[in-house]
């Protein structure tokens, strides 16, 4: 009896230690990735990297200034598309809609969320690039914006719903019309959660590469306006990583570091916002 119990206890301790190992391995991957990027990319980050345009093939000394700005422009456009649609759509779902419409909209949003990014790229290619006959920042921003919509929509809806009914009723009791109540009471109450959702959606699409391959193409120069092809950090990383040139490899590491730090910082900030003040007590 005793030995059997000893065995079971041993198994228990062993397996539980293994789960700890699993957790340790999983978490350490993050630090491994970060460490590698810092080690390889840290030395290549220089003023030139941030301010210069790419040099001709085989020559050293170029930078990724245009890719950084290109990414920024497309992300701005993505936010301008994704956030209003998600935000106002969520208001509709949380405040105005009936059961069936809500179900249909949520279903569509979840469907859109699950679409692989390459398929979003196909979609943007066929409805923006081909008809307009232009690879463009617009097409790229559109593809990224599409990906932001469902994330923003579902998260915002959840945070709006979490606002206690008491707040709503109080507003109504004071004579506010519905839209006034939404604007002045409900949305501000859910403000933190909504901001978090937007930031997380932003961080998610900031690293997307596949949809940009067919929409923004690439540009060795500054991309003027919105209707021209543009370079972007993720696409530049891809292109440089598969090339044979050492200088390009170094730049790819540097770009990877910049991109990852940006995404991680946004993620950390977003979670900090959410956890710091729950203006929305969980009901």
């Amino acid at each position: 009896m005793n030995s059997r119990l000893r065995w079971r206890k041993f198994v228990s301790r062993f397996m539980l230690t293994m789960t700890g190992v699993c957790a340790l391995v999983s978490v350490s991957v993050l630090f491994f990735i970060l460490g590698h990027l810092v080690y390889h990319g840290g030395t290549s980050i220089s003023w030139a990297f941030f301010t210069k345009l790419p040099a001709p093939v085989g020559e050293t000394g170029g930078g990724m200034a245009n890719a950084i700005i290109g990414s920024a422009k497309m992300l701005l456009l993505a936010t301008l598309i994704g956030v209003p649609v998600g935000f106002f759509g969520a208001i509709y779902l949380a405040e105005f809609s009936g059961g069936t419409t809500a179900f249909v909209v949520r279903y569509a949003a979840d469907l859109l969320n699950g679409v692989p990014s390459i398929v979003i790229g196909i979609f943007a290619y066929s409805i923006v690039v081909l008809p307009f006959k232009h690879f463009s920042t617009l097409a790229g921003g559109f593809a990224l914006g599409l990906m932001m919509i469902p994330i923003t929509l579902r998260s915002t809806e959840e945070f709006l719903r979490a606002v206690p009914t008491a707040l709503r009723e109080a507003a109504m009791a004071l004579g506010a019309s519905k839209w006034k109540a939404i604007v002045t009471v409900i949305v501000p109450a859910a403000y933190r959660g909504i901001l978090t959702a937007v930031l997380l959606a932003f961080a998610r699409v900031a690293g997307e590469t596949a949809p940009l391959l067919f929409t923004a193409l690439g540009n060795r120069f500054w991309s003027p306006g919105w209707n021209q092809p543009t370079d972007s950090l993720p696409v530049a990383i891809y292109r440089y990583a598969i090339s044979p040139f050492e200088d390009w490899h170094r730049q790819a590491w540097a770009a990877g570091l910049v991109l990852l730090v940006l995404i991680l910082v946004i993620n950390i900030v977003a979670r900090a916002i959410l956890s710091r003040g729950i203006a929305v007590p969980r009901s």
Partner: protein
Amino acid sequence: MKRIAVLLLAALALALAGVVWADSALLINGAGATFPYPIYSKWFDEYHKTNGAAQINYQSVGSGAGIKQVTEGTVDFGATDGPMNDDQLKAYKDKHGSAILHFPTVLGAVVPTYNIPGVTTPLNFTPDALVGIFLGRISKWNDPVIANANKGVNLPANDIVVIHRSDGSGTTYIWTDYFSKVSADWKDKVGKGTSVNWPVGLGGKGNENVTGLVKQTPNAIGYVELIYAVQNKIPYGAVKNAVGEFVTADLASVSAAAAAASTTMPDDFRVSITNAKGKGVYPISSFTWLLIPQKFTDASKRDAIKGFVTWMLADGQNYAENLSYAKLPKEVVAKELTALNKIQ
């Protein structure tokens, strides 16, 4: 709320600024072959420095994409090392109502580049060896077909890692065009084209990726444009030409390949110079072309492109040899200058 409104307004202002800023530079977009990308990127850079008005943004995405995108009209010009076939020309004409023109820019060579641990001397490859490797029939480096042409070299008994293109490629076109000429077997089984059904091997995207893969993978063999092997200091072999000599690709041997074609150049400039006869000829050479629409709706773009081509045929040619591309023969240059007038 107010903060959000302010942020939104700022974003809107930026957006409008972007639109206004749109017209500050004439941007011309081209896409296509990776084969000439090193010289094209140099050219467009230099041209922009001397003629600041136009910026020519060239994306090296492969000849297949170049042909497709110029036909779709999403780029202003294309580039390819595999000339468009009649079906593709017709497709362009059907879509746009006017023709698309080929303009040769430089001559280059496709070389077999390899990474064999312990082998530092350049290898000799017969057509049979190359075709056999890429058909998958020859699978080890010390196979007799390879060894017989390389007496004295200690080839290891390692498996050959074949690397080809995963994207639609003019370099593939040149390579398979050569193979189709020297091997009826290849012609039947695989054929020639920018994208073929490869019997064996891994795919890399663009000349760049194939070079990278060969560089990093022991026992690999791939086919790339000469400058990629040179710039990355990876060994490349000599190929046996039509008259039986083993010739290494360089400016002289590539120019020799074009010698016969320069006087018999057809009006549309589509010609294949692989496996050309003659002494000192490198058999896997080729022209590479810009694909320029005959009719432009935007006059400033047309003028900019015509201006570039004129510059390219004169000053531009001087940059070619530094990057191991051979200059165009004089007769071809003259013919192109006349052909430029066709563009409206």
